[in-house]
């Protein structure tokens, strides 16, 4: 089970890394990038093993019972830490904004859930807003564009934070996307329930990426990134796709999302 260590040394925040299931399954390098960024910023990082999914798929599909069970699993695994941090606004938005909604009528659990929500943060906003990180040690010699995920923008108010840190990456040029407040069409199970609509939304976003003149697309949510990388591959585009944490941690030397050996 989870390496249990005593918590709280006065000025070293102890962070429980919520890896998120998509990063765990699809792109472990994002998890390692998150660990590196957190450690560089002076955190002690623990990865509880009893973590899987935050419950958002169940919650968004009306399966409140399973959503609550998964929330309790997260609560049990993470409430001992000073902070819960993860490389996804979508999952951390669920913990921060929706867990209290799920337990609104559960007087016994609500205080614990609210305490958990209050100390849960998306990775980049945690670095900037909570730890006061101003710059990172990284280089990325590319023209990039940044896709704001809807949960980052509207649930967690994250917009300037990734841009601030990206501005400190040497060699990186940021070309802003037109229509950056418009959804890319992922939407969790939406993208498989309504593929034609989702596909059109992704295609429009891919057009916007192309129009930005960027060679690389970055974002902070793997759901959006898999959707857009998949659409770009389908349309034969050569734009490379990375999670923003990989670039900020100077770990974007691996293959980009959906990139083959050829």
């Amino acid at each position, binding site marked *: 089970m989870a390496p249990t260590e005593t918590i709280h040394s006065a000025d070293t925040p102890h962070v429980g890394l919520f890896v998120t299931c998509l990063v765990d399954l699809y792109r472990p390098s994002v998890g390692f990038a998150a660990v590196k960024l957190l450690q560089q910023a002076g955190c002690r990082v623990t990865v509880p093993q009893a973590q899987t999914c935050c419950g958002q798929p169940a919650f968004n599909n009306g*399966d409140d019972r399973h959503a609550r069970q998964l929330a309790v699993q997260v609560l049990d695994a993470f409430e001992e830490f000073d902070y819960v941090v993860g490389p996804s606004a979508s999952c951390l938005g669920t913990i921060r904004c929706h867990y209290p909604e799920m337990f609104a009528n559960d007087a016994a659990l609500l205080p614990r859930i609210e305490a958990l929500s209050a100390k849960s943060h998306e990775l980049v906003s945690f670095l900037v807003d909570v730890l006061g990180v101003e710059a990172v040690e990284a280089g990325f010699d590319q023209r990039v564009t940044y896709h704001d995920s809807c949960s980052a923008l509207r649930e967690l108010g994250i917009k300037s934070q990734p841009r601030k840190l990206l501005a400190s990456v040497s060699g990186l040029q940021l070309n802003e996307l037109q229509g950056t407040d418009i959804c890319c069409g992922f939407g969790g199970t939406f993208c498989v329930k309504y593929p034609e609509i989702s596909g059109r939304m992704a295609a429009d976003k891919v057009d916007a990426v192309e129009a930005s003149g960027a060679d690389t697309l970055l974002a902070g949510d793997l759901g959006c990134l898999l959707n857009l990388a998949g659409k770009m591959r389908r349309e034969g585009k050569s734009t490379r796709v990375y999670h923003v944490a990989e670039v900020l941690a100077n770990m974007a030397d691996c*293959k980009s999302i959906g990139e083959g050996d050829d």
Partner: protein
Amino acid sequence: MQPNSRHFQANAESALREPNLQSALKQLESGFVAGRQRCYDALPEFEALRDRAKEVLDHTLDNLDAYLLEYEARVLESGGLVHWASTPAEAREIVIRICRDAEAKTVIRGKSMIGEEIGINDALEASGFEVTETDLGEYILQLGKEPPSHIVAPAIHKTKDEISDLFLEHHRDLGFTQRQTERSALVNEARQVLREKFLAADVGMTGANFLIAETGSNVIVTNEGNGDLSSTLPRVQIVTAAIDKVVPTLEDASLLLRLLGRSATGQEITAYTTFTTGPRRERDADGPGEYHVVLIDNHRSEMLGSELRPMLRCIRCGACMNHCPVYGRVGGHAYGWVYPGPMGSVLTPLMVGLDEAGHLPNACTLNGRCETVCPVKIPLPRLLRSLRSRQHLQRQNSSLARIALALWSWVALRPRLYQLLTRPAMALLSRLGARNGGFKRMPLASGWTRVRDLPAPQGSTFQARWQQQQRERK
């Protein structure tokens, strides 16, 4: 109007292949969305107004019975009559009875969504009345026998060419034998045709943007002035309005009016804002001899008593659909009933049934852009999610999705099993996809691969690598 929401999927797919519709929808961002943003930027108290509007409307809904009775009392004092209808059928019967009692032959209508909701035009025509829509957009749709595709701009999906053809076809017998192609010429032709209808009409019908409890007044906003003519020229006026249209005071109405035009069309205020109170008094130069208000429930009191109550704050500005990425791709007709977009996806299931409209709460990415622009702060994503919970509890959602998600949750609730299953699965998937970097097809994931490739995963899971790394460190 017969609902056709059951076929949302097919409706949406054909809408995506309709070039005229697609080019019309592309104008939303540069038109309504940009217009609202300009208004927002120019009004420093916009956010404060939203908060205040929410408060006023929540207070009104908490005391809806009292304000409705106050409104009714003021209407009676002003010489008008109030009729209460629980269902669309009752509302239609009341309207038809009023028209018959007045020995009317012709009815003119100012645009109103409640009229569409209760299907008043078809009912009046079936009872032998001649009905004319006087809002230009609605008039075009009446000629084309189509439902509206937007609650503010009902004919937003029609091109100028299509309108030219419609006018030539229907106005030729009235002496308009030239096919007009200029926007202003088309408007002028419609104005001439409609002017005769206004002057000849026995009954004028309008909806209500607001009903004011303290004065018994009805407020409508238009940009064409047709609402004024519809409510003052005919000898009988009928206002059809839903029970959630009442606000306590004139002051409250002016607060909401400041938000309505800005949120809807990017106008500080519409060209016409019309207040009518009761029938013509002795000293009045004009106005109707009879003034009727039909107050319609149609499931709103059920909403009042449920978690969906915030939906009753809606002031029908259409900002949610203007900003909705799904509406912006498929247009209003795909939703299959009167109200499209996010607000329609909440209302339609409640009014026509969750079994008919089951797609609508699901056809949403929960991106939340609608909520951020809603002038009365309706938490639309939360309401759509709560309809999904109802569907789940009533087992009305797709069984395949239910099983897949239940299986996922079951595994995710067992972290050891989850790790045991996912490690080899992701390793295999990674090996298969390594050369190409992704998959064009994948069994059980055709929804994904129909429109995009499935990128290959990196390899072993994070947890597996992390644990290995921790062991090596020790």
